[in-house]
């Protein structure tokens, strides 16, 4: 059993180790190790495309995470009190939105938005006052964020709902019994109880969005996210620069994960 576990961990980590190792390659070819150096880190960091892609991904992922945790939590709370046909409708939509493959979401969003924009742009141009440049609707940040949020929002709804379902109803009654108004009960009792689920949903949404390639590939328009950049450099032919980026992303997410863990533990301690 133990040996099996060790084998699985090796299976999980050897590829990651190789990426890290080759990121220190002194040679120009990704597939041959010729001495160690950090030159590729320098190259990656000074490459303006990498920086831009990183910022784009970060902005998109943060927005997606914030939007989905806010809207998802709100919806989960509302659905709790909703009954009848509306409830069935929303349940169905949530089910469909998590079940549809990302690639279909990407394609359908692309096709729909292009169609809508093709329809709206001439109208905008015609009603815009003479002389000034009419705004042109196009793919970009907004479309990526909207498409990502569809999936991650449903994820948050499911997670928060499960948490609410597992919550002891008597706690809310106890709070009301102790003179707290419904609002105060919400932020003093309900919110602290569902907070871990919201936090988990936030983190999951962030990673999903930051890592997503396929949806962004279709709807990002002229913008390049980090996964799109990595994908195209792999396609162009591999240089250790990709390894350096990958290693930095890996280390970055590890640091984030550990900070989050540490902060939560500190919070538990002080309370």
């Amino acid at each position: 059993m133990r040996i099996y576990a060790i084998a699985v961990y090796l299976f999980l980590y050897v590829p990651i180790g190789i990426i890290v190792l080759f990121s220190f390659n002194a040679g120009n070819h990704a597939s041959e190790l010729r001495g160690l150096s950090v030159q590729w880190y320098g190259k990656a960091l000074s490459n303006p495309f990498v920086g831009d892609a990183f910022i784009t991904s970060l902005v998109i992922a943060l927005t997606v995470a914030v939007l989905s945790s806010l809207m998802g939590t709100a919806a989960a709370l509302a659905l709790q009190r909703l009954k009848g046909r509306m409830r069935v409708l929303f349940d169905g939509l949530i089910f469909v939105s998590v079940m549809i493959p990302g690639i279909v979401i990407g394609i359908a969003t692309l096709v729909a938005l292009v169609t809508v924009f093709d329809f709206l742009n001439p109208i905008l141009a015609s009603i815009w006052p003479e002389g000034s440049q009419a705004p042109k609707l196009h793919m970009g940040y907004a479309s990526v964020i909207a498409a990502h949020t569809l999936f991650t929002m449903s994820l948050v709804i499911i997670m928060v709902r499960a948490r609410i379902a597992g919550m002891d109803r008597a706690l809310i009654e106890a709070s009301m019994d102790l003179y707290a108004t419904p609002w105060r009960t919400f932020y003093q009792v309900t919110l602290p109880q569902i907070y871990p689920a919201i936090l988990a949903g936030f983190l999951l949404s962030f990673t999903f969005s930051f890592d997503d390639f396929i949806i962004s590939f279709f709807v990002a328009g002229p913008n390049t996210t980090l996964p799109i950049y990595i994908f195209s450099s792999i396609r162009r032919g591999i240089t250790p620069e990709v390894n350096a980026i990958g290693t930095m992303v890996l280390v970055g997410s590890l640091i984030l994960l550990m900070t989050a863990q540490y902060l939560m533990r500190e919070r538990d301690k002080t309370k």
Partner: protein
Amino acid sequence: MKEQSKSNRWLTAVLLTPTGLWFAFMLVLPLIVILVFSFGERAPVGGYAGGFTLEHYANLGARLKAFTNTLTYAPVGTLLSLLVAYPLAYYLAIKVNRRYKLILLVLVIVPFWTSLLIRTYAWIYILGGKGLPSILDWIGFEGVRLINTPGAVLMGIVYGYLPLMVFPIYVSLEKLNKSYLEASSDLGASPYKTFMQVTLPLSMPGVATGCMLVFILLMGEFLIPAFLGGGKVFFIGNALVDLFLQSRNWPFGSAISITLVVIMLITVSLYMRMTMRNSKTGVDESLM
């Protein structure tokens, strides 16, 4: 009383509006658009031109290979991941010393938190000419091809989705009260029987959840076959990228997308109904 329930209804409506709008504009509308497109004509320069034809649906056979590939690799890949993941989850939940539990668990999850793109890319190295094959060469097995084979794709699948499978199974096994196991062995069941009659049935919700998650993701998979399958093993996802971005045959691509969605709806609903009946708990929402 009346007043209160009225303001309550208002609150519910306000809380649900953004989500409702999102579903309407980002889910329902796009699906309707591709449904309409799937019955349209291909414009001469690519893209879409109006019209009504069933030609694209009749022509699905042209991409039959993508469908059969996806529909075999997705279940097989799911099953393989399950086979690899279950013992590990069992080990983590039941066998391992409390002290190392958390760190070992985090080690399973960390890869999941790093880009699938980069992780899959690593395997291009390992399976590529200068990786494992060259080592095999050196040992004496010459000319072994690893990359761009069905095996490479399946391995990429197991590698990519292992954490997603381990985690729900771990959670359901962890919830399983140790005293059940003790009770079972106290009642004279052998370890094997205990596993078959107690552990396995009680971990079914986690298994069902994990399988469903992996299966759903595999049905739309693009990266793994693109990187590790070369042109040989391709999924519906690869066909779609090709149709929309290279040959720009939007109506045909839409027809394929709609077909994929219908297949997913049917299989996933059937699957959920089945697991729901078999184990009363069914797919465990709290794990998702």
